């Protein structure tokens, strides 16, 4: 039944008890001792009178007793109402981004019994598109809960709209239609979305304008043998983004075709090959991800933007098959940068140094192949996060590119739904045991009254035989 669930379905086996009186009745129906009588009319009349006189009461008693058994079975089966709350009628949920766009167009959502903002606290949205303040409604319209604009750098895993809606569906029983209003772009679709099921109707705003295409990203991953696992993880994450997001990412990986040469003190050697960066003239972003235990000046692992200028003696890193490109890593003192990523224990994992084209991201530890408990925690905090590919992408794009790019990246809803992951559909429930017990008590009292009521209240005999 819609809105109801059974916490212990095996309790329904108690319904088998209903078959017992029926089986006893059928079994004994064909039997009976034989008694010879002189006037069968009295017995025929007694049976007829019994049936006609007792039909309403006996049938009612039978129904009451069956109902008692059914209630007992439901009590054992843990009958409960779904959700902590029940919402009648049609319900619409809008993402903050969708609502911001609609408000700008002067078209607040209408035609629904209620509209909620898909943010923490689920604040209601009135017919004018205004949000009614409520507990936990800190989300402002236009600032998505999914790590996007504001949280791109820190990439803390916050609740995305899909997860919020999945949680809402699991905790609140919607008896009517549920509609989700979102934008068909990257902000609205996390890499792995909870499956919402067929009960939710999607309403997606138009695709982003052509000018909002995110910049192309060209990534070359170099690594030594010890960091192969990390390199594979990063490559897989970027490939996942390219495949699922539809964004332009050209990623390739090579195992140290050219090892940066430095001396033990961190002073760079003279570049053996000083191939200059051959810009391809596009507006895309090129990045080198160096993953190696061999000493790259200034840090163990670096993510570098291309054509890194600067004083000093840069270390030139020739990228073997990358056409005409040489990346230069500038040795730098190990100074603390802006922590963009932290492990669960709070230790910085990835730091950002500089800005713009000189931006350098320094990964302070390995991504995979942990060797100890702390490393395991670190891995769990980074690689196993559902948003790891997204976060890596945002880090590579940088804040400015992200502002104009990722939030407007078109996402294919069907692909997003296809890759949605199972989500627990059984949420909390409100047990109906007290009500069932009360109903059983009332029915039992009625049954006792009907079966034990004074015989004088029964109707007079209506025999029609005459001597």
């Amino acid at each position, binding site marked *: 039944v819609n809105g109801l669930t059974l916490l212990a379905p095996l309790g329904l086996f108690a319904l088998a008890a209903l078959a017992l009186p029926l089986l006893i009745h059928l079994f004994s129906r064909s039997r009976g001792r*034989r008694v010879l*009588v002189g006037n069968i009319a*009295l017995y025929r009349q007694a049976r007829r009178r019994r049936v006609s006189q007792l039909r309403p009461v006996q049938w009612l008693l039978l129904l009451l007793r069956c109902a008692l058994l059914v209630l007992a079975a439901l009590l054992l089966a843990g009958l409960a109402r779904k959700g902590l709350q029940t919402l009648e009628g049609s319900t619409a949920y809008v993402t903050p981004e969708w609502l911001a766009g609609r408000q700008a167009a002067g078209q607040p959502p209408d035609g629904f019994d209620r509209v909620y903002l898909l943010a923490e606290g689920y604040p209601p949205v009135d017919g004018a598109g205004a949000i009614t303040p409520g507990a936990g409604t800190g989300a402002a319209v236009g600032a998505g809960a999914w790590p996007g604009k504001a949280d791109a750098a820190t990439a803390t895993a916050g609740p995305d709209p899909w997860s919020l809606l999945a949680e809402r569906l699991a905790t609140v029983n919607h008896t009517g239609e549920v509609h989700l209003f979102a934008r068909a772009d990257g902000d609205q679709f996390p890499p792995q979305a909870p499956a919402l099921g067929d009960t939710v109707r999607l309403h997606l705003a138009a695709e982003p304008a052509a000018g909002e295409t995110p910049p192309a990203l060209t990534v070359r991953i170099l690594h030594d043998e010890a960091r192969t696992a990390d390199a594979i993880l990063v490559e897989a994450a970027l490939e996942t983004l390219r495949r699922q997001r539809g964004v332009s990412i050209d990623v390739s990986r090579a195992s140290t075709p050219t090892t940066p040469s430095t001396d033990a003190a961190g002073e760079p050697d003279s570049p053996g090959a000083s191939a200059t960066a051959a810009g391809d003239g596009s507006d895309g972003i090129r990045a080198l991800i160096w993953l190696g235990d061999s000493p790259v000046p200034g840090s163990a692992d670096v993510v570098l933007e291309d054509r890194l200028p600067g004083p000093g003696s840069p270390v030139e890193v020739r990228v073997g098959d990358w056409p005409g490109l040489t990346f230069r890593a500038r040795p730098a003192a190990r100074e603390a940068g802006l922590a963009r990523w932290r492990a669960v224990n709070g230790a910085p994992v990835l730091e950002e140094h500089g800005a713009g084209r000189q931006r350098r991201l320094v990964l302070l530890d390995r991504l995979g192949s942990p060797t100890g408990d702390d490393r395991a925690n670190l891995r769990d905090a980074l690689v196993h996060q559902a948003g790891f590919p997204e976060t890596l992408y945002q880090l590579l794009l940088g804040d400015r590119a992200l502002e104009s790019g990722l939030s407007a990246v078109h996402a294919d809803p069907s692909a997003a739904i296809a890759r949605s992951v199972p989500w627990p559909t059984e949420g909390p429930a409100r047990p109906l045991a007290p009500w069932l017990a009360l109903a059983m008590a009332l029915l039992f009292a009625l049954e006792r009254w009907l079966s034990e009521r004074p015989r004088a209240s029964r109707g007079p005999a209506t025999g029609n035989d005459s001597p």
Partner: protein
Amino acid sequence: VLRALHGLQADGGFPDAAALQAERARLQVPGLVVVVSDFHQERDEIHEFVRRVSTTHNEVAALQLLCGDEERFPWDGPVRFEDLETGETVLVSGKAAREGYLEARRGYQARLQAALGLLDVRLDTLDIDAPLDQAMATFLERRRQRLGR
């Protein structure tokens, strides 16, 4: 009379009108007519016979033979009642049908007594489970008291 009654073998159904005509012819002289029966009739044959023999010069004594099971209906569980004369069977639950049977029986008995009373016939019942001499003594004593002798 008792010896004659004891020698009788009951079988078949109630005699038809032609068979009873000869017997009624012997009752033209004043006398006492004793009708011994269970007074269960298929149509109205016993009542009709009593009506015919109950004349101004005859006194009719009706003796209804009953057994304890008929009065108490001690049956429990499924019971299949079978009519001695017609063979018809009725399957009932003894406990469930007891009340209905007893009510039907009380009504039947009341209507039987009323019908015979209109013919000025007194109905006496005899328990066939009791010794016959005791039953007859009881009957005669009640008759003596009624006649005020």
